[in-house]
């Protein structure tokens, strides 16, 4: 088995307007999905959540605040899984709640 990073991107991670009940449901959805991956013994690391506000440092010492207009989808977090190959790792990504928020999951092998 090889390790892969599943990178989650969504247009927004701003949940400040979300009612507590819906927030709870969303947390549940993420935990259920990741729990399903873990139940298959495939979760290597339940990576950190990336928060906001953020800053971006560019060449020439230019510092800008987020959000990052260049990227339509903001990187939110990632987990590391183990899988037979890229296809297998992609199968694990199915059902990820990021997909329900117009987001995406990028699957990258870890060298």
């Amino acid at each position, binding site marked *: 088995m090889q390790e892969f990073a599943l990178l989650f991107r969504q247009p927004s991670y701003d949940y400040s307007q979300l009612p507590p009940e819906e927030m709870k449901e969303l947390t549940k959805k993420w935990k259920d999905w990741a729990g399903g991956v873990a*139940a298959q013994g495939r979760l290597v690391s339940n990576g950190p959540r990336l928060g906001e506000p953020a800053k971006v440092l560019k060449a020439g010492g230019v510092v800008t605040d987020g959000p990052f207009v260049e990227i339509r989808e903001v990187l939110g977090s990632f987990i590391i899984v183990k899988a037979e190959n890229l296809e297998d790792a992609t199968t694990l990504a199915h059902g990820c709640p990021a997909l329900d928020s117009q987001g995406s999951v990028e699957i990258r092998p870890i060298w």
Partner: protein
Amino acid sequence: MIQKHDALKQLFQREFSKMVAVIARLYGLEHIALAEDIVSETFLQAMESWEQRGVPEHATAWLYAVAKQKTLYHFRRTKILQDKVLPFVAASASTKADAVEPDFSQQGIRDSQLQMMFAICTPAIASEAQIGLALRILCGFGIDEIAEAFLSNKETINKRLFRAREKLRTEGITMEFPPEHMLATRLDNVLHVLYLLFNEGYYSTTQDKILQKDMCLEAMRLCLLLTGYPPTRTPKTHALLALMCFHASRFHARQVSPDDLPVLYEQQDEQLWDQALIHQGHHFLNLSAEGSDLSSYHLEARIASWHCVKEDTTEKWEEILQLYNDLLFINYSPGVALNRTFALYKARGWQVALVEAEKLKLENHFYFLLLGELYRHTDTGQALVHFRKAHTLAKTQAEKRGIQEKIDALGTF
């Protein structure tokens, strides 16, 4: 007469671990077998003497006094005192001559037992031998009882214990409190061994119910001992103790089956659950919430606390499901994965659970039992296939019988 014998047996078992710990602390862990012999001889002498004159009023004081005499006698005779202890005593000028006596004060016993726990629970010993040694040295079980617990024979257990003691010696394990920077890791080892000890009793394959219960109670006693000493009184220790209390509350309820098999959770009479222990469990669970530490013991204790609520609500299973998710994030095991899928079934229904269960691809009878249970809702043929597989893989006759009942029940549809 039998009652009196049982009382003595209990007294000896209780005092054995204390006395061995105190004597071994004085003369070094490398002489632990000798410490065991001295204590056994003391008990023998007590039996003979008390048989004639009756049990003295201060039985434990009597035991300590005799053990003290025997200890000094043995060590003088074997010259260990001259060769090893005396030079040491002479070297530290401030040490009084009577410091070479075993310290049977309350403080002395407590410290010795705690140090012995750290010594026995060293990662240097393989875990099977470790449990055996813990049962012997920390819990005071007899060799025949340990053999029964492992479904083995006395000779094998004696050999295993011998190797474990040798390992203590060759690894240079000493009786002392671990230094502060090592304490957390070493305490983890101790808690893990106590956890295994409890499980060994709770899920034991031995038919001896008193022995099963004794093992669990001893694990709880040792865990309680840790809560009495500030450096080991941690949220994790409290969480483990809470877990043990919740499980132990169902002891009686699971042991009242007429055919001597454990009564399954679903069939237990909750009137028989020990409410006092459940209450204690909640007390320790509250204490475990101090700080930000969230160990697997915390999660398991919370799951166990939900199992002390008999009523089947979606809320209960939803909570259990999330706790199993959290447990999987910390530590994967096939058992936890199965339990998580069962909780999913109870919380969200068989359709969701079946999809997830199919992905697990395990190879034990519990897995096929779960698949059979899920298929029962949609495809009797598939359910039968999986139940039969479970029947083939099941290890005990009791399990096979339970599965056969499920197969028979399917046939009636």
